[in-house]
C-alpha cells in the first residue's frame, strides 16, 4: 500500500509541478527585461490547447515518428518515479538506481533523435546530430556526479542517497556536496537545453537543438514531447535540491500533515532552484557550439574533484 501511495503521489507531483518550473523561469526572465511576461500557468494552458488540437503526421515518416512521443514521456515519468520528491514516503523494494535513471533518460533522448531524423527534414537532422554530440559529452559527467553523491552516501539507489543525506549535518557545507551542486547545475543547464548550450525560446535555425528535433510535431504529440522535456528538467532539479538541501529531517510531526508540509518545502526549494537557473540564463550569452565541450569538461572535473575530496576527507 505504501508503495502504491508513493507512486501515485510521485507521478502527480511530477506532472503537476513540471510545467510550473518553466513558468517561473520565463517569468523571471521577463522581469529582468522589464516585461510583464506570460502568466505563471501559461505552459498548462499551452498543453491543454495542444491536446485538443489535431495531430498532423508527415506521409513519409515511419512508425518511429508516432512512437517517439510515447517513449519520451514514459521514460521521463519512469525516471521521475525514481527520484522521490518527498523522502518521508519511502518507495519499497528495488526502485532503480543511478545507472537506470541515466539510461532511461538516454533512451527517451535516443528516440527523440531518431524521430528528428525520421521525417527527413534538414532541421531535424541537424538538431539530432547536435543533440547526439551534447549527450555524448554530458553522459560521463552525469554519471561521475551521481556516483560522487552515491559514494558519499554509500549507496547507488537515489532514494537511499536522499535518506542518507538527511542524517548529515548541512550537506552544502561539505566540499563533496559543494562540488556536486556546481556540477549538477552545469548538467541541468546542458541537459534541459538552457541558454549557454541551447536557446529554448528561439526558432533560429543556426542555433536551435531541442526545438529543431521536435519541429515536425503537432497537437497531442507535441504536448507529450513538451511535457516529457519539462518532467526531465524537474527530475534533475529534484536531484539537485533533495540531495544538497534536504529539509525533511526538520519536520517533527508525522502522518498526512508531515507529507503536506514536506511537499510545500519541496515546492519552495524547486522554485528557488528555478529562479537560480533563470538568473544564470539571463546573465550568460549562448556559447559557440564548439565551446560546449569546455562546459562538459568543467562539470566532469568538478565532480571528479568532489570524488577525490571524499577519499581525502572521509576515508
Amino acid at each position: 500500500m505504501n508503495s502504491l501511495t508513493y507512486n501515485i503521489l510521485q507521478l502527480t507531483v511530477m506532472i503537476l509541478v513540471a510545467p510550473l518550473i518553466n513558468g517561473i523561469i520565463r517569468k523571471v526572465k521577463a522581469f529582468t527585461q522589464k516585461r510583464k511576461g506570460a502568466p505563471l500557468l501559461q505552459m498548462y494552458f499551452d498543453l491543454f490547447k495542444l491536446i485538443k488540437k489535431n495531430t498532423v503526421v508527415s506521409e513519409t515518416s515511419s512508425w518511429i515518428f508516432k512512437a517517439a512521443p510515447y517513449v519520451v514521456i514514459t521514460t521521463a515519468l519512469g525516471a521521475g518515479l525514481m527520484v522521490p520528491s518527498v523522502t518521508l514516503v519511502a518507495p519499497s523494494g528495488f526502485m532503480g538506481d543511478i545507472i537506470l535513471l541515466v539510461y532511461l533518460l538516454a533512451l527517451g533522448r535516443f528516440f527523440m533523435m531518431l524521430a528528428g531524423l525520421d521525417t527527413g527534414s534538414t532541421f531535424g537532422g541537424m538538431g539530432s546530430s547536435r543533440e547526439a554530440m551534447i549527450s555524448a559529452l554530458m553522459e560521463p559527467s552525469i554519471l561521475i556526479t551521481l556516483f560522487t553523491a552515491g559514494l558519499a552516501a554509500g549507496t547507488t539507489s537515489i532514494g537511499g542517497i536522499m535518506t542518507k543525506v538527511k542524517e548529515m549535518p548541512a550537506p552544502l557545507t561539505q566540499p563533496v556536496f559543494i562540488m556536486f551542486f556546481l556540477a549538477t547545475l552545469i548538467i541541468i543547464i546542458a541537459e534541459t537545453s538552457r541558454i549557454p548550450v541551447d536557446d529554448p525560446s528561439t526558432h533560429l535555425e543556426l542555433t536551435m537543438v531541442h526545438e529543431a528535433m521536435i519541429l515536425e510535431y503537432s497537437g497531442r504529440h507535441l504536448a507529450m514531447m513538451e511535457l516529457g522535456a519539462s518532467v526531465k528538467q524537474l527530475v534533475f532539479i529534484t536531484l539537485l535540491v533533495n540531495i544538497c538541501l534536504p529539509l525533511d529531517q526538520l519536520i517533527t510531526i508525522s502522518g498526512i500533515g508531515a507529507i503536506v508540509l514536506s511537499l510545500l518545502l519541496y515546492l519552495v526549494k524547486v522554485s528557488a532552484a528555478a529562479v537560480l537557473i533563470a538568473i544564470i540564463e539571463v546573465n550568460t550569452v549562448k556559447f559557440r557550439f564548439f565551446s560546449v565541450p569546455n562546459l562538459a569538461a568543467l562539470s566532469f572535473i568538478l565532480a571528479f574533484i568532489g570524488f577525490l575530496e571524499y577519499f581525502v576527507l572521509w576515508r
Partner: protein
Amino acid sequence: MDNYNQVLSVLILLTSFMLMANKRIKSYIGTFRLQSALIALTAGIMGIRAAMAEGSIDVLVVSIIIIALKVIYIPNLLHKTFSGVEYKVEKDFFLNIPLLILICCGLVVFSYFSVSRVAGGSDGIMNAEVVNSISLVLIGLFFMISRRKAIGQIVGFLVIENGIFITAMFSTNGMPFIVDIGVFIDIITAVLIMGIIVFKINEKFDSIDINKLKNLRG
C-alpha cells in the same frame, strides 16, 4: 561549520580551474581577483581566531594587505596596462581547453598522491587543505606554460604566488610577519616590472605574443 577551511580551500582550487577554462583577458583578471578575495577571507578568519586566542594581530594585518594589494591594486594595474592592447581573447592554445582542464585534474591527483607520501601516509591522514593549495601552485605553473600571450605568464605567476602563500598559511597557521611582507614587496616589484616590459614590448612589436620575442635576436 567547523570545516570552513576545507570549503575555502576547495573553492580556491575551483577558481584556478575557472581560470584554466577562460580565454578572455578580462576574466583572467576577474578570476584572479576572486581567488585573492577568497584567500584574503581565509587569512582573515585565521587572523581573527589568532587574535582571539593569542592576541596577535599579524595574520589579520596580512589579510588586510592582501585585500589592498591583490584584490584592488594589482588587478587594477593589469587592467590599466592591458586596456591599450588590441586583442581581448586568447586564440591559439598549444592544446585545446578540455584537454588542459583534464591535465589540471591529473595535476591534482598527482599532488594528492605525492602529499600522501610525504605527510603521514602511514596514519592515513592527509591534510586536504595542503593538498589543494599545492595543486594550486602546480596549476599556476601549468597555466603559465599553456598560454602564449604575456598576460598568461603574469597571471600564472600571481597564481603560483597565491598557491605558495596559501600552502604556508594552511600548514603553519600564519607565517612570521616579516616573511609575508618581504614576499609582498617581491610580488609588487615583479608585477610592476612585468607590466612595464609588456607595455614596451607591445609598443615596439605591436604584439605581446611571446613567440615573437625571438625577433630580438640579431
